[in-house]
């Protein structure tokens, strides 16, 4: 018998549908269906100035907007042959890592709620709010930041930000201990999650599964280390790895990643304190858009030679490896923008980690995948 879990189901965390073929409680087959949230972001991008695409990137993934902004910006900068100043690179790492904290805390809240635990859900949401408040203090918005620009970032940090950020980080480190006490310390949690949703490394690689799911299978793959972008090659951190490849392992990997994020953030905050400087590159062409207003085609189309180029970027997003391909055929708008969503691959592999388990195991397993439908459908 086929049953539909979704598109409106507490398990799905967004608009997508998981069709499940069951025999009693046993899962015989699954068929994920995506596309309910398609907004045509790639197509709209072709009609926008380079900086105006950033507004779409925040809506692409609603829990990790900064990571997607960074992804697009890296691609666009490569296509336009623009280099950001060093301080902007560190500020982008700051954004990325705070976003990773925010995204993983959101995942923690959603995941434990899937297991039926209400209090940890509230703790996760409460602590994520601190990260959002920090974002708001220097970008001006809590979720749709519009902070990064081609050639740098919009503005520098406000005075007193670094002290406030360090306070929040100290607070969060204490909370991680509490999370572990609530989840790993509870035998009920361990019995629910151990040996559940096993996806081994060879299968994960074959299916294009990336991010914490791949690292939970023992594969030490992290783009921040393997293909460093921004300032990651100048920072010290470890890649979180676990071996069990089950739901508990994914929990452990994400918790360890948050601790590593805190470690990176301390280094970045120290660096930012020591090195003031410009945050936006010099000599940016006006037609890029904000912070300038892109004015008409007239003055440019006649007299100006536009640069041409291709840009490819890949970023270790909180959910996995996201990739962007920006084609600049000359002109004020990108000719084509293509994004690769990690969650799309992770959900599509559902057959290999759901079949053989029980219906009641679906919420914890899919919760451990960390689904964000905004980026799946774009």
């Amino acid at each position: 018998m086929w049953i539909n879990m979704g598109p409106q189901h507490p398990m799905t965390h967004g608009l997508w549908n998981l069709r499940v073929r069951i025999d009693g409680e046993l899962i015989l087959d699954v068929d994920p269906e995506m596309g309910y949230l398609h907004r045509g972001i790639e197509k709209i991008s072709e009609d926008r100035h380079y900086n105006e695409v950033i507004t779409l990137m925040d809506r692409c993934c609603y829990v990790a907007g900064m990571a997607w902004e960074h992804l697009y910006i890296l691609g666009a900068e490569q296509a336009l042959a623009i280099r950001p100043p060093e301080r902007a690179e560190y500020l982008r790492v700051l954004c990325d890592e705070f976003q990773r904290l925010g995204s993983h805390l959101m995942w923690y809240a959603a995941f434990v709620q899937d297991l039926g635990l209400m209090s940890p859900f509230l703790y996760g949401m409460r602590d994520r709010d601190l990260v959002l408040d920090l974002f708001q203090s220097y970008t001006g918005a809590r979720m749709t930041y519009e902070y990064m620009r081609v050639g740098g970032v919009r503005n520098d940090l406000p005075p007193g930000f670094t002290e406030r950020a360090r306070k929040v980080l100290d607070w969060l480190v204490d909370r991680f201990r509490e999370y572990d006490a609530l989840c790993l310390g509870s035998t009920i949690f361990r019995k629910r999650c151990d040996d559940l949703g096993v996806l081994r490394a060879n299968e994960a690689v074959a299916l294009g599964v990336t991010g914490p799911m791949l690292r939970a299978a023992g594969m030490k793959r992290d783009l921040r280390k393997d293909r460093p972008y921004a300032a990651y090659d100048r920072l010290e951190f470890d890649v979180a790895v676990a071996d069990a490849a089950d739901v508990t392992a994914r929990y452990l990997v994400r918790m360890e990643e948050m601790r590593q994020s805190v470690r990176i953030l301390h280094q970045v905050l120290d660096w930012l304190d020591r090195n003031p400087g410009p945050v936006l590159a010099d000599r940016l062409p006006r037609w890029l858009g904000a912070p300038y207003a892109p004015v008409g085609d007239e003055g440019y189309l006649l007299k100006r030679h536009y640069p041409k180029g291709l840009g490819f970027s890949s970023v270790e997003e909180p959910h996995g490896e996201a990739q962007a391909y920006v084609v600049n055929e000359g002109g004020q708008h990108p000719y084509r923008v293509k994004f690769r969503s990690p969650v799309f691959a992770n959900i599509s592999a559902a057959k290999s980690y759901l079949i053989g388990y029980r219906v009641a195991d679906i919420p914890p397993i899919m919760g451990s995948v960390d689904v964000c439908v905004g980026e799946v459908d774009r």
Partner: protein
Amino acid sequence: MTEEGTATEENPVLYVVRPMATAAKQFAKSLVRPSTVIYPFERLEDPAFREEVAVASGKPIGVGAIWDNYRGVHALNIATCISCNLCAFSCPDLCIEMVTVPGGDPKHPKKCPEIDYGKCSYCGFCSDACPEGCLTMTTRYELATAKRSEMVYSPEKLYEVFRTKLPMNPIRLERPENEDQILLDPPLCIGCNACARDCPTACITMLDVAKPEAKAGEKLPKRIWKEPVVNDSDCVRCGTCISVCPKECLFWGKRP
């Protein structure tokens, strides 16, 4: 699929009691220092409430003076608006329309932005682009209306927001020194004065140029012997001169 033995065998009562002890600790803490804001009565943008929050330091809540740069409803100072159109140009959602307001002369009507909040995405590009700092974003965020037409804020309504003196975004973007400038292609110019007439900051002056001697058998072009000169320090880079130029002789570029 769950296996026995992976978790340590313990007294079953501990299964429940240990996590509950952690939760109880949190509950006790939350009685002293709740993390929530009781919204209609406490408001984050309210200065009095903010001070209270700052006094209760150690409270795990990130609000405080940081609320000022929130990107909410715009405030427009009509008096300093120069009708340069830059906000409307920079809007990715095309929600800004320039409408006529009283105050201009009949030849050059004064136009100020009218914002449709049904479309606005609060990206702040318009206030970044505003050269005079007259269009800013405030901390106001309550926009619920009963009618869709009330989502469109006329310049007068935006001026009302300005007059409430809400805290405004303190982050001002500095204008880069080597921005693109308005350049002239002299052989194409016919001296028609259109650019100087429409410049919102009146930074273009028409200067006389020497009328060359016509060579034998050649005719001089029929034109007025004047050329625009742009005062870069006053220019706000709105591009009005480029768009009104009938001969397309003005363009963006860097002065050598």
